[in-house]
């Protein structure tokens, strides 16, 4: 993931330098910058990057126009930076095919997390195996691998686990998980969710009554703690 090429398009030199510096210190190695829409298109003509970080407000060609031009030739993931207030305007770029947006002024950590999440979605690992403390889960086969033994997950367990794995390290709220389980009308299904969580723990935890991988965050939801795969 760290070797994905990042293209930063912004007319503000300081902002380009800052974003480059954020990604470099996070370990990303291939960062290209462009000062205008035209320059970005020239860069893209040579090689399509892994992700584009695009400012909406630019003098010659604004971010939305550029996005349309990009979408005409490529499905490369695009994160847009906007200077409009967050609650004031619903983001217009989604209709044009932006993958996510971030409101200025943003915190460096936010930018990193968003880009990571987009890259993870856009370029899934070849083998989708999640390594946990006591077991690992093969998402493609919906199986828990523990001490060499493979135990299948039920469809419901799988959907809950997948949601938690997608957001590994972050709390997934009860509402979001219930929605994953039951669809549109999800209110009042907390007990059903708890049953599935219990079954999941029996399959993945060393000691299901003292979970270390699938944690409960009281009142809020659940969090999956994943071991980073060794490189």
């Amino acid at each position, binding site marked *: 993931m760290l070797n994905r090429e990042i293209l930063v398009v912004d007319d*503000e030199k300081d902002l380009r330098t*800052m974003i480059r*510096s954020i990604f470099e210190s996070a370990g990303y190695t291939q960062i290209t910058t462009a000062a205008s829409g035209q320059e970005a298109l020239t860069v893209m003509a040579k090689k399509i990057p892994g992700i584009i970080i695009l400012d909406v407000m630019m003098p010659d060609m604004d971010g939305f126009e550029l996005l349309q031009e990009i979408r005409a030739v490529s499905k490369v993931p695009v994160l847009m930076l906007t200077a409009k207030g967050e609650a004031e305007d619903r983001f217009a770029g989604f209709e044009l095919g932006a993958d996510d947006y971030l409101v200025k*002024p943003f915190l460096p950590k936010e930018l990193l997390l968003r880009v990571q999440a987009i890259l993870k979605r856009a370029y899934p690992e070849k083998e989708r195996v999640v390594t946990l403390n006591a077991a690992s889960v093969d998402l493609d086969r919906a199986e828990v691998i523990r001490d060499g033994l493979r135990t299948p997950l039920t469809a419901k367990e799988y959907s809950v686990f997948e949601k938690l794995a997608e957001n590994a390290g972050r*709390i997934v*709220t009860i509402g979001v998980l219930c929605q994953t389980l039951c669809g549109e009308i999800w*209110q*009042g299904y907390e007990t059903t969710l708890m049953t599935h969580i219990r079954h999941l723990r029996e399959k993945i935890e060393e000691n299901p009554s003292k979970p270390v991988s699938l944690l409960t965050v009281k*009142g809020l939801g659940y969090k999956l703690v994943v071991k980073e795969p060794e490189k």
Partner: protein
Amino acid sequence: MKPVERFFRKYFLSMVGIIVLFLLLNVVLFFSVLIWAWQTSETPDLSMSEICDRITLDGTGHLTAAGELAEMLEEHHAWAMVLDDIGTVIFQSRLPEELPRRYTAADVAKFSRWYLGDYPVYVQEHPQGLLVVGGEKGSQAKYYFSVSESYARKLLVGLAAVFLTNIIVVVLLIWKNTRHVEKAVTPILRGIETVSSGQSVSLPERGELAEINRQLNRAGAFIAKKDSARADWISGISHDVRTPLSVILGFAGQLEADQTLPASAREQASHIRRQGEKLRSLISDLNLTSRLEYSMQPLRMEKVYFVELARQVVCEFLDGGLEARYQIMFDSSQESETASIMGDEALLKRALYNLIQNSVIHNPKGCVMSVSVVWNGNNTVITVSDNGIGVSAEKLDKLRATTNHLESTDERLKLRHGLGVLLVRQIVEAHHGTMEILSEPQNGYQTVLVFPGGET
């Protein structure tokens, strides 16, 4: 009753009062004239009975005038005669030459009603016949009325009806006229009320008062334009500050994390970063609060499950690198799980976010925060509290009283403290909810939001 209606009610009553006064005045004037004329006119104080008494039979069976009858008559330029039963003059005093000395019954009937040769005459029965007294020519007006009883009655009733009809018509006309004026003026007065509350109006620019309506519309539009210009200005400024602030936050964060720098330099970078973050929340608050203030922020109402909304906001904090000295406890009642209200999700999240952010900012040494969502059957009650340093009673009063940052009398506009709370209040009020703040110095800070309505 509204002031406008009260004004027109009063106006109508005063018009009716004027008419009543007018009528009364006329009655008084009429009687005054009658009395004045009666008192100042020469009246023939010739008494018929006195004259009658003075004409008596003498010993010869002839009538004679006793006393000063002739002088009496002369004084009044009058004359007198007595007719016997067959119409012959059997006594006369100062009777003009040109008048006959014999009268037929028809003559008598005529002159007793009208005139006798232009002399106004009066008749009275005398023991010897009929006493006729004549006055000076042109001294008296004599009319004779004789009408049928039913005619007279109808005439009286008719006159009363005419009088009443007149009154009713006048009152109706006044009423109609008042209504007409009211109809034309009420929208203008309402418009002034609206404009004075800072909103624009759109009155039809027709009729006699079109010009006034036009001016009022212009005044309203002018105020709205100023408001929107102010909001746009704030939005523009905050827009221009966003990019530089991103750069500041980014580099400060980098420096803070740079292990090759001395600890003191990293500490300084950390200060820059924290102040930058304050500036960041201030800018977005300022922009949103001005838009809410001038009603430029449309609410996107949808079904909102508050428990889930609150969970997401709390998780945002917990996952967003909240430092270890801060803790957030979350609590919700079983019934609140399925309770929903109609609201703007983004704004409600923002309100909750601001409350938690406030606790974080004002307790730099850390604190335990608690967020709870309870559905009590009628309302959704959100409580956000911390066990931190709290605020003084004086500060609390200020926070409770903050309703409008543009009305602030504080010359330094302490936005650092007040704006976040103001924005929460605006959002809560836009959802018809209430907000209450409780705090004591060194004893925590609590905000209770109550949103009415909703369903489970």
